[in-house]
């Protein structure tokens, strides 16, 4: 009897607790939320303050919330107006004037004007600025504009508001890729009101002028953005809501797409691309690859400093089979360090043929037969190299045939960067995703002697050619397109002769979506304008 009473009363208690929690909580479940696009990807954003992050996953979202002064065209890296309607520069390239779009408001109602632009730039460039802080760290700004205010090479001398809608930049020295830099997502303009309120929290509660506002962020799971009703570009965004859903595993993400859990996804296994093309419910988008995958020789080590050895290895790489085995034919063989559609690509240069006999002969002539080397390769898939480990296994077999013994060494990505950038490798598989579509962003970063450092080197071939250095420096401070083109062509010719790398491929990045998706243009920078996307259900 007593027992039963106890049991009964405990149920009542439990029920009371439940109803208490429910009544205290004003949450809700919504199942019908208007038109919606679910974008599946490999990882969550780190922060939503674009000035603070460096990863594509964060930018994918901030690009929907923020606008930049200028932007890339839909399908290539040419520049078009965005928040700035037009601009002009002085002949020496040191002064730039931007005329801003009128009647634009931030999501919090703050008007967008010259003051807002100046405020953002000062926050990024001035270490002393009261809001020069954030959730993580300012990284892209000093990388693209050579440091902060007061640093010896810093590019921007001053940013001033001439009137309500005109901004003037004065540069310390001309910068070839200046406009291209301004179009990069880290330079999205944020609401001064919101930043002043709390610059650190801004990464959690971003406020911009973009087509979407942040609605909800479930960490490591999904980010929901919803339509900005007052967006200045009429007729956009096309879809009411976008959900960015993190599904770390490529195969799992693809399963989710096939079963309709998500609408669009990046980071596909190339082999799945064939399935997408066969499936009438799906469609495949091919993003022109503004990237390069390469095999770098550590030229500080023997015998990799031997030109004939590097040439021999270049002859021993079967790029055609590499592409058919691992890229599902979604790649083109690389001849030069950057892809053909970019400025100043030298199309006169011919690639070394795949010829194991010749390679073997070259090795024997150089007296290097039987040499043993370490080939470093990353474990994790990269957009330019979906399976580095397998590629290494593939190369190992062919190198064996020309008398070069290779031991494969793998690390997970973070460790790998650490090891390779301090030059532990003999040979290393690596790659690069372009940021702004400028050749400087490839050649200078990857092959200039100033970037061959003891630690944290981005030139992991440790290639130090004075002539190339001079050409690249000159191109950097030239604004004239044709002149720059000439300089880059010359640099590529020298590089092709000296073979610091085996350029492997420029990978086309496959993106899969439902067949009902319209208006999606996979941009070579990887920055997609998802506000143009809509799902047309029949």
């Amino acid at each position: 009897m007593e027992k039963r009473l106890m049991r009964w009363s405990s149920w009542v208690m439990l029920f009371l607790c439940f109803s208490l929690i429910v009544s205290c909580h004003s949450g809700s479940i919504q199942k019908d939320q208007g038109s919606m696009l679910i974008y599946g990807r490999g990882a969550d954003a780190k922060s939503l303050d674009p000035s603070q992050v460096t990863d594509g996953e964060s930018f994918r979202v901030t690009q929907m919330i923020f606008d930049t002064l200028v932007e890339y065209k839909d399908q290539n890296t040419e520049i078009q107006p965005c928040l700035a309607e037009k601009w002009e520069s002085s002949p020496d390239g040191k002064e730039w004037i931007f005329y801003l779009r009128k009647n634009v408001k931030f999501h919090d109602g703050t008007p967008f004007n010259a003051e807002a632009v100046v405020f953002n730039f000062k926050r990024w460039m001035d270490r002393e600025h009261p809001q020069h802080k954030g959730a993580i760290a300012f990284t892209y700004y000093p990388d693209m504009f050579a440091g902060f205010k007061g640093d010896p090479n810093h590019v921007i001398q001053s940013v001033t508001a001439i009137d309500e809608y005109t901004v003037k930049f004065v540069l310390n020295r001309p910068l070839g890729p200046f406009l291209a830099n301004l179009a990069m997502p880290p330079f999205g303009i944020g609401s001064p009101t919101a930043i002043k309120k709390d610059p650190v929290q801004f990464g959690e509660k971003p406020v911009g002028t973009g087509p979407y506002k942040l609605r909800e962020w479930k960490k490591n799971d999904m980010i929901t953005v919803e339509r900005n009703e007052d967006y200045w570009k009429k007729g956009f965004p096309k879809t009411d809501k976008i959900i960015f859903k993190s599904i770390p595993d490529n195969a799992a993400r693809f399963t989710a797409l096939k079963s309709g859990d998500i609408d669009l996804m990046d980071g596909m296994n190339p082999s799945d691309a064939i399935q997408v093309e066969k499936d009438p419910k799906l469609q495949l988008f091919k993003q022109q690859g503004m990237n390069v995958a390469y095999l770098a020789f550590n030229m500080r080590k023997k015998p990799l400093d031997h030109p004939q050895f590097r040439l021999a290895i270049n002859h021993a790489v079967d790029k055609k089979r590499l592409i058919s085995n691992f890229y599902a034919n979604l790649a083109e063989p690389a001849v030069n360090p950057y892809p053909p559609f970019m400025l100043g690509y030298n199309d006169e240069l011919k690639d070394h043929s795949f010829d194991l006999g010749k390679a073997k002969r070259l090795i024997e002539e150089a007296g290097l037969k039987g040499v043993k080397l370490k080939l470093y390769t990353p474990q994790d898939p990269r957009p330019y190299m979906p399976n580095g480990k397998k590629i290494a296994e593939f190369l190992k077999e062919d190198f064996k045939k020309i008398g070069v013994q290779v031991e494969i060494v793998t690390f997970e990505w973070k460790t790998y960067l650490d090891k390779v950038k301090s030059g532990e490798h003999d040979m290393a598989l690596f790659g690069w995703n372009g940021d702004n579509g400028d050749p400087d962003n490839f050649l200078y970063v990857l092959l200039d002697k100033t970037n061959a450092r003891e630690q944290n080197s981005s030139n992991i071939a440790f290639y130090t050619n004075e002539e190339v250095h001079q050409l690249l420096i000159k191109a950097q401070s030239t604004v004239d397109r044709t002149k720059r083109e000439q300089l880059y062509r010359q640099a590529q010719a020298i590089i092709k002769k000296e073979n610091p790398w085996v350029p492997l491929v420029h990978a086309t990045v496959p993106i899969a979506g439902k067949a009902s998706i319209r208006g999606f243009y996979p941009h070579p920078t990887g920055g997609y304008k998802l506000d143009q996307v809509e799902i047309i259900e029949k």
Partner: protein
Amino acid sequence: MGAYLLRRLLQLVPVLIGMTIVTFAVVHFIPGDPAQTIAGEKATPERVEEIRKELGLDQPLYRQYVQYMGNLLQGDLGDSLVTNRPIVEEVVPYLAATIELVVASMLIAVFWGVNLGIFSAWRHHSAWDFFAMIIALLGISIPVFWLGLMEQWLFAQTLDWLPSNGRMDPRIGMEPITHFYVVDTILYGDLEVLWDVLKHLILPAIALSTVPMAIIARITRSSMLEVMRADYVRTAKAKGLSEFTVIYKHTLKNAFIPILTVIGLQTGTLLGGAVLTETIFSWPGMGRYLYTAISERDYTVVQSGILIVATLFVLVNLLVDLLYTCLDPRIQYERK
């Protein structure tokens, strides 16, 4: 009872302190550091150095440890180095996700394990017994991640019966209350969403339940066999009570202590050990959280996260010990 509890809790302290030392040493031995993660792979070395300084990583290790412990003693688990958010807040959804998964799989494991064990003890030495024990043997031998993959292949991809990953259809927007989705949907009173959540739970829970299920089945069988020989069971049978009552009421109750131990141990193990299942089913749980933190070198998250998991592990086992007294009043913990 109280004294026993106190002693057990005190014994915990050196283990947990030892744990922080081991974890601290281990994570700091990993090459590379969070400054590199934060700065991104394209940052200049100067930039990385600056961030290192901001995070206090340029200080000597012992000082970093002392500082971490100082904060810990004040109840502060620290902030994630990568996301800059307090771990106490950040960890809640992951912990809830893992606990939900573990509870679900333990329910499956206990139900099938106990019944399988009883069944084979009841039909001792029959073909059924043999068959049940083969199942249990397969259960402990099957690699969980392989089973997970096979499940996905069969039930999610080929047959398309169940979702292959995540906790809920992303199209449903739900503000979590407790972060246990099953509980939340019940609180909201939305059965349709509850069904969706359960569907997401089935495959990973089954994969994760195989090992504990098998172990429980074997323990139950041997424990039951032992008890069935006891006098009171024979008496109960002689009294003419139904076989069902004898088995489930008299025998099982007395055979339950070893079973309980196993349940406790397995629950504790699964809390941090579900990394692979969570990876395969993209389940945003503790294992995944810690694994990511290791690869990002997020020192504080690894340290505090492992501490949380280990504390839970120890507490679950303590709870089991306490439950013994409820089941069997003969057991007392006052003095050895």
